[in-house]
Structure formats: structure tokens, C-alpha cells
């Protein structure tokens, strides 16, 4: 505890850097997954290959990917951008199959009747298909967010600032409290973002709320 209290500024700095690396990949992966999933769902074979590729991409451990990317795209091993690109790839590996399932979970009858009522394709997508795919999409984003926040720490061994630095520094200097603080903070950050996503989901999709006693 003493270490934590003495180093609040360091911790705050790392937490900020952590979020800066974690959040953009989650958002970008989400945004890109929607068109990619729609595209994949249009063809059965494409969907199968996208799902398989995503599974294999996700099987690649993070640190080797952090090391590999600079050779491919010219980023620096120690740059946050390098980490963010890798995390976006993982995000896509998780989110594209999830989004594909989400769109498939929407009943064809509902889409058919929306078309019959005269929804134009874009309006049908935005007002019918996207909201109905919402719950499964939300479940996907939650997994991506939790996984991304946890993965950011691995960049610590390469010297990229994040809460992962607490593990590297704590291990090198033998400070147990520093590592423990890092574990707790990383997990807490993941759970807080997860809780915020659940709240956001409730606000955006009021029809998915459990019927409570008050509404009965």
C-alpha cells in the first residue's frame, strides 16, 4: 500500500497511457467489424474462411505479434502505435465472427416484413437490423474490451508505457506491492469498462432490459 500511495502520479500516468492504447483498437475493431461481417455473411464460403482465419489470428501470442509487426509495416517495436495496430488485429479476430453471428441472429421474417413495409436498404440496416443485432454485438464488444485491456500490459516488457510497466518494474526491483497494484488496477479497469458497456447497452437497447417488478 505504501508503494501505491507514494507513486500515485506514476500509476495515474500509466493508467492514462493504458487507456490511450486500449480504447482506440476496441472502437476501430468494432467499426470495421460491421462492414466486414456483412460482407462475410453474403457468401457461405467467405464466412467460413473469415471465421477460421480469425480463430488462427487470435491463436498468435501477443508478444511475437508485437515483434513481427515492425518488420511488416515499419512501426517501431517500442511505439504505442505498434501495440495499437496489433490490438486492433486481435479485436477484429474476436469481433468479426461475433458481428457475423449477431447479424445472423436477426430473424429473416422481421427483415422481410421491414422491406415489405417500405424501409429503404440503408434505413432498414440502421433502424431494424443493427438494433436487433445489438445484444450479440454488445456481447462481442465486451469480450474485445476486456481482452484488449489485459493484452496492453504485455507491451510493458518491450518498454511501452502502460500498467504493464508496474509488472516489469516491480519484478526487476522485487516490489510485490507494485505488481499486485498492477494486477488489481488492470482487472479493475477491464471490469469498469465492461460495466460501462453494459450500461451503454441498456441505454441504447431499452427493450433488452429484464422485466423488473416496477415495470410489471
Amino acid at each position, binding site marked *: 500500500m505504501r508503494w501505491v500511495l507514494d507513486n500515485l502520479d506514476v500509476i495515474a500516468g500509466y493508467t492514462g497511457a493504458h487507456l490511450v492504447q486500449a480504447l482506440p483498437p476496441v472502437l476501430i475493431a468494432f467499426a470495421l467489424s460491421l462492414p466486414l461481417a456483412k460482407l462475410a455473411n453474403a457468401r457461405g464460403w467467405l464466412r467460413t474462411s473469415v471465421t477460421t482465419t480469425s480463430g488462427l489470428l487470435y491463436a498468435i501470442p501477443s508478444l*511475437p505479434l508485437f515483434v513481427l509487426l515492425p*518488420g511488416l509495416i515499419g512501426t517501431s517495436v517500442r511505439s504505442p502505435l505498434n501495440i495499437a495496430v496489433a490490438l486492433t488485429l486481435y479485436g477484429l479476430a474476436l469481433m468479426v465472427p461475433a458481428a457475423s453471428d449477431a447479424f445472423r441472429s436477426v430473424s429473416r421474417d422481421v427483415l422481410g416484413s421491414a422491406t415489405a413495409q417500405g424501409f429503404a436498404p440503408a434505413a432498414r440496416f440502421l433502424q431494424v437490423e443493427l438494433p436487433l443485432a445489438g445484444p450479440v454485438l454488445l456481447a462481442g464488444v465486451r469480450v474485445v474490451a476486456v481482452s484488449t485491456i*489485459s493484452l496492453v*500490459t504485455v507491451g510493458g516488457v518491450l518498454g511501452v508505457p502502460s500498467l504493464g510497466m508496474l509488472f516489469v518494474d516491480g*519484478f526487476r526491483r522485487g516490489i510485490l506491492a507494485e505488481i499486485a497494484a498492477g494486477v488489481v488496477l488492470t482487472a479493475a479497469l477491464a471490469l469498469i469498462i465492461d460495466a460501462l458497456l453494459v450500461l451503454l447497452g441498456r441505454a441504447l437497447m431499452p427493450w433488452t432490459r429484464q422485466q423488473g417488478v416496477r415495470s410489471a
Partner: protein
Amino acid sequence: MTSFLEALAWLGDPAHWSGPSGIPIRTAEHLGYTVLGVLVAALIAVPLGLYAGHTGRLASLSLALAGAARALPTLGLVTLFALLLGIGLGAPLLAFVILAIPSLLAGTIAAVQSADPATVDAARAQGMTETQILARVEIPLGMPLLIGGVRGATVQVVATAMLAAYVGNGGLGRYIFLGLGARDYPQMLAGSLLIIALALVLDLSLLLLQRLTAPRGVRAA
């Protein structure tokens, strides 16, 4: 591209293929850590998952814990246990097991619960005992999902086994951390390529196993 050529040259160097820190030994160590970690985790998670999935007891609690455990940072656990337990395989093994359990537990519960309740009800009404229902109906029908849990756990442990090298153990992670310390990018890249190859071979093998264990009557549908 030159860095890839240098990494390939590193991999082609016969000196890196022999001795106690040669590629075959490091690969065997990495594979050994992974198998050991997944096996110990399976001994804990599979029986618990079978019980929770079949009886419905503890199922939501198990799944909530498994979900929360996914938020744990692997590097944090590995370094924490290394400080607590000292140098050796004990610390990383504890981390492997903790990180492998969520996938295995969730996969096993999902596997058991994937059988149609009507099918299970009919099996019970025919006079199957609870053990027979589990062994002859629920497990065979859910086998691909169970293997899926093993796949997820393996992915997780292969990645974590690499960090074991960070706290002084062997495995393919050694090359990355040696290269990092010596600013030897070709060696880091070569180590990374080896780990990626190992991870993909393991994942593809389990994917194949997953396809092969899908019950025939269900695939025919």
C-alpha cells in the same frame, strides 16, 4: 524485409539447432509447459464443468468467475507468482493453470448444456442413469465445444508460456527476451516466428480434432 531475411538466416544457422538452448530443446520445453498447464487445468476444470453443466448447480457462478478471470493480465500473474514463489517452474505453472481454467470451464459447461433438453429428458425416461446420460448423451453431443474449450486454453497457455522465459524459465520466449536485451532484432523475430508456428500448429490440430469429434448424426443434419 531485410529483418525477415536476417531472421531466416538466424533460423538457418545450424548452431541454433543444437545444445541445451537449441531450437529443438526450447520447442520441447515450450510444448511441455503448455501440455502440463492445460492438463493440470483440465483436471480441475473439466470435472467441475461436467458437474455444473449436468446439474445446473454452480453453473452461473462458475461462468461469472470464468468471465472475470479473463480480465486478469497474464504478465501480472507470471511476475507476481515469480516474486512470491521464487525462480522455478512452480510460479509460471500456477499462472498457466489459473489462465487456462476459464476457457476449459466455460467450454465444458457449454458442451454439457448444448444437448437438447428434450433429448436428455427422453434418455432419462428410457432408464439411463445420470452417469450414463452424461457419458452417452451429453459428452458425445458436446465434444466439439469441449475441445473448443481446450483450444482456447491452449492458445492462452502457449502465450503465457512465452512469458515464463521472462522470469527465468526456458521455452521459445528465451529468444525474444535475449534478443530484446541485446537489441538483436533478428533473434527476436526468429523467436517470434517459432512461437507463432507452434501456436498455429497446436491450434490447427485442435481445430481438426474439433471437426473430427462432431457427432456424425448431427453433422449429417
